[in-house]
């Protein structure tokens, strides 16, 4: 794992600087990037949004968008600098010697072509062979990347595949030409955790077997800890530190790395406060229960004479005042649908929802309206949920204006108060949503939900798609709100790490049904249901240990000899 000598390196980047914009006042996006990628090494590149990770991948492929250009330094692949190559050579390099696996596989496939054809097409432009031969190799490879019934799947169109399956197709597309290097740019972003580990296990295992070097670009330190040999930490277009993962996890060299690692760890559980609400099986009119859900069902008609999809199937639970209940499960498990039914944003098909003693499942809208101020939702995608033409102050004040007539001074005071509550500086009140970062937008979403001082809040995926440190900040914020306001909350997420830090109790959902429920600690310590166990097994904690995924542990030196 020591730095390889020149002859060994599959890829060598030396003092790479990339700029965009006019040459008079260029916008430097990457500066002085240097690293070597050894044969059969897996190098992780980690960094937050805007660190320049994706631009680096594009520069390595010689595919910088727009007017992006390399102003300094060099990229050398297999001993030849790409700057010295002709356009034709560079084209043969892409996909032939260095393959890309990108984010959101379904968008990377040609929607009107059979996936098998797309793979064999890549093979045939790099290694001329007959159609039949290419098709045969494609089927063989699909089998090797874990696709069941490859003959039939190869004839499928992209829209007929799941996200995980599409990602395997992309991996096959990258492997078909036997490249020397694979660039995986946030390849598993947006996939369910269980699918993510399957895909990464597969990728790393195949790479180790075939002796391929991999650059794994990610913002997830768990992936780095489990799969990589060395890690480069990127920030503002520079590599902050570059060292073996083991050392990085034990002794990060920079304060930035330390803060990243700190943010990725689960917060210590909240001890005595957690113990307060204890699960009790009896129903009844307990005054302490803010919400009682009984036999909730929701189906969606999909038309075409097909049977309706059962999104929520006879779900019952209850929530005490001051309790935070987490709803976890993979995509399609019905988490968000339940949240929307509880607030009557969707009408439930049947079942009882008692909010503070009143059944709201079938309540008429005029009677429900006054209750709405007491139950709020923080939406999943804050940017989409904010009117882009309004300033932050108006966005936050909107729920106040809907309530009663508030004098201007009082209104301004409340906006300031709410901004402070979500820990945002007051000058942001004049900003528009597009001027805010993702984390700030989430906070505005939270402030809007809290404006009416609700008794019950549904948080829909509040930590998804956020950078490590921002996610930790949002979790801290929600913890503080729980403490200060005694909020009763339903916390919808697939990020188990945040459940540990936030929820007293947890419900595990699978295909619209509750498979397990109880105290968070108990369920996470001793899951009873096999589905819960699968979910927990797919987590990638950031500790370097024996728990590293199989096939990832070999050092490149050993693999070279093998």
């Amino acid at each position, binding site marked *: 794992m020591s730095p390889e000598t020149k002859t060994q390196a599959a890829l060598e980047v030396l003092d790479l600087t990339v700029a965009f914009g006019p040459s008079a006042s260029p916008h430097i996006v990457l500066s002085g990037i240097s690293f070597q990628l050894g044969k059969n090494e897996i190098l992780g590149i980690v960094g937050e949004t805007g660190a320049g990770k994706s631009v680096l991948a594009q520069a390595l*492929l010689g*595919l910088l968008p727009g007017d992006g250009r390399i102003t300094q330094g060099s990229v050398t692949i297999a001993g030849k600098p790409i700057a010295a190559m002709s356009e034709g050579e560079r*084209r*043969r*390099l*892409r*996909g*032939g010697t260095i*393959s*890309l696996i*990108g984010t*959101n596989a379904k*968008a*990377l*496939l*040609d*929607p*009107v*072509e059979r996936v098998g054809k797309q793979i064999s*097409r*890549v093979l045939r*432009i*790099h290694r001329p062979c007959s159609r039949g031969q290419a098709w045969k190799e494609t089927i063989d490879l699909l089998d090797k990347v874990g696709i069941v019934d490859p003959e039939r799947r190869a004839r499928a*169109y992209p*829209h007929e595949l799941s996200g995980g399956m599409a990602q395997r197709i*992309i991996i096959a*597309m990258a492997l078909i030409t036997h490249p020397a290097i694979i660039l995986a740019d946030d390849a598993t972003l947006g996939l369910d955790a269980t699918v993510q580990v399957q895909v990464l296990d597969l990728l790393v295992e195949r790479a180790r077997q075939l002796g391929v070097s991999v650059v794994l670009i990610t913002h997830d330190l768990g992936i780095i800890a489990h799969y990589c040999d060395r890690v480069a930490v990127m920030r503002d277009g520079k590599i902050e530190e570059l060292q073996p993962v083991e050392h990085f996890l034990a002794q990060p060299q920079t304060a930035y790395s330390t803060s990243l690692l700190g943010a990725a760890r689960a917060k210590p559980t909240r001890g005595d406060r957690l113990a307060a*609400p*204890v*699960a*009790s*099986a*009896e*129903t009844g009119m307990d005054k302490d*229960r803010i919400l009682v859900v009984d*036999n909730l*069902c929701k*189906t969606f008609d999909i038309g*075409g*004479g097909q*049977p309706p999809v*059962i999104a929520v*199937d*006879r*779900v*019952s*639970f*209850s*929530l*005490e005042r001051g*309790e935070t*209940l987490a709803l976890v499960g993979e995509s399609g498990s019905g988490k968000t649908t339940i949240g929307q039914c509880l607030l009557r944003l969707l009408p439930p098909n049947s079942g009882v929802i008692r909010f503070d003693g009143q059944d709201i499942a079938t309540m008429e809208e005029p009677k429900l309206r006054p209750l709405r101020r007491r139950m709020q939702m923080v939406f999943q995608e804050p940017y989409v949920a904010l009117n882009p033409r309004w300033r932050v102050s108006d966005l936050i004040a909107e729920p106040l204006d809907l309530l009663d007539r508030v004098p201007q001074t009082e209104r301004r005071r409340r906006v300031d108060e709410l901004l402070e509550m979500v820990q945002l500086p007051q000058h942001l009140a004049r900003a528009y949503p597009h001027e805010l970062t993702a984390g700030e937008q989430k906070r505005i979403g939270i402030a809007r939900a809290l404006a009416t001082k609700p008794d019950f809040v549904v948080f829909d995926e509040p930590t998804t798609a956020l950078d490590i440190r921002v996610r930790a900040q949002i979790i801290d914020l929600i913890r503080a709100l729980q403490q200060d306001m005694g909020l009763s909350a339903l916390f919808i997420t697939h990020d188990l790490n945040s459940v540990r830090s936030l929820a007293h*109790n947890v*419900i595990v959902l699978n295909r619209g*049904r*509750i*498979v397990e*429920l*109880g105290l968070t600690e108990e369920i996470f310590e001793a899951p009873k249901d096999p589905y819960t166990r699968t979910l927990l097994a797919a987590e990638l904690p950031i500790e370097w240990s024996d728990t590293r995924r199989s096939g990832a542990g070999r050092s490149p030196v050993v693999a070279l000899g093998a």
Partner: protein
Amino acid sequence: MIEATKGGGAARAALPSLRGLRAIWHLIPRPLRIILARVALIPMQLFGVLLVTFVLVRLLPGDPALLLLGNMATPDAIAALRQRLGLDQSVWIQFMHYLINVLHGDLGTSIFTSHPVTQDLLERAPATLELITYAMILTVVLGVGLAILSVAGRRYGFDRLTRLYGLAAGALPDFWVGLLLIFFFFHIAGWAPAPFGRLDTYLTPPNTITGFYTIDSLLTGNWADLGSAISRLALPVITISLVNAGAMMKMTQTVFANVYDSSFVQHARACGMPESRIVAMSLKNSMPPIITTAGFLFGFLLGAAVIVETIFSWGGLGQYAVQAVINSDYPALQGFVMVAAIVVLLVYLVVDVLYELVDPRIRI
């Protein structure tokens, strides 16, 4: 505080017979399924077309008998003609008669030309169809070609040139373009033949097989006719195409540019795909809106080509329809509306079938 019901899924009612039918339906290959599903609708649509043309005629003011006989007719003569035309019977009986007549190919007699309308239409429809078919082909080739050039060649500044053309094509009226072309290519340069009709006057038309002079002369090996037909088609076809390709180009440009910059095309580039394949792939993904626009344009040109037909004395459907309107020739007009509706119906049938063929995401 938490209680839950763990239970089986809700009962799913199944309709076995329906499901069985669907299974058989899905055994048929997809392209055949698409065509079958669309063709099955044709009889119903045709019935609708006939009903509408019939009602349209009934909505026209005045008594056809009175109109046919003129102002000097005696009441007896009018009554006799009404009886002969079946106008004294109920509307439904009349509709039945009309249906039966149409099914026998009888569309009545034109008041103005005194020929059976069917015969008139059979003479003129091929002229118009030949003209707009070639115009459509050229329009699509020109519009789509320029759009591709402007997007794929934008770093060479092609997009500026095509923007200029788009602007000009949107502003120029077709009669003016037609007259300009005649002026330059016939009058000044003398390259094009005189703008009168589909064939040089001293030639006899080829034997009718399809009604398209170009195809018929090719099939019968009549080379003189072929050359003449092509040279006479050139100017009107170019006129129609120049005017309409602008819209086609702008529409294709938007769609094509979106696809050309999309993630899967970027990924294809990262896989080392050559530029020609990238363009082909992007074009395939841009097909649905292009097909729709082409189909719409075809239906539109059926009537809109009349000005160009007039300028080039084409003797087509459009001219016939205008004549019928001017002369209150209701049987002729009714016949034209019916033929136009049927052609549009068939074009949309082709459009729908093509649309579903190029996009595998549409479920049949």
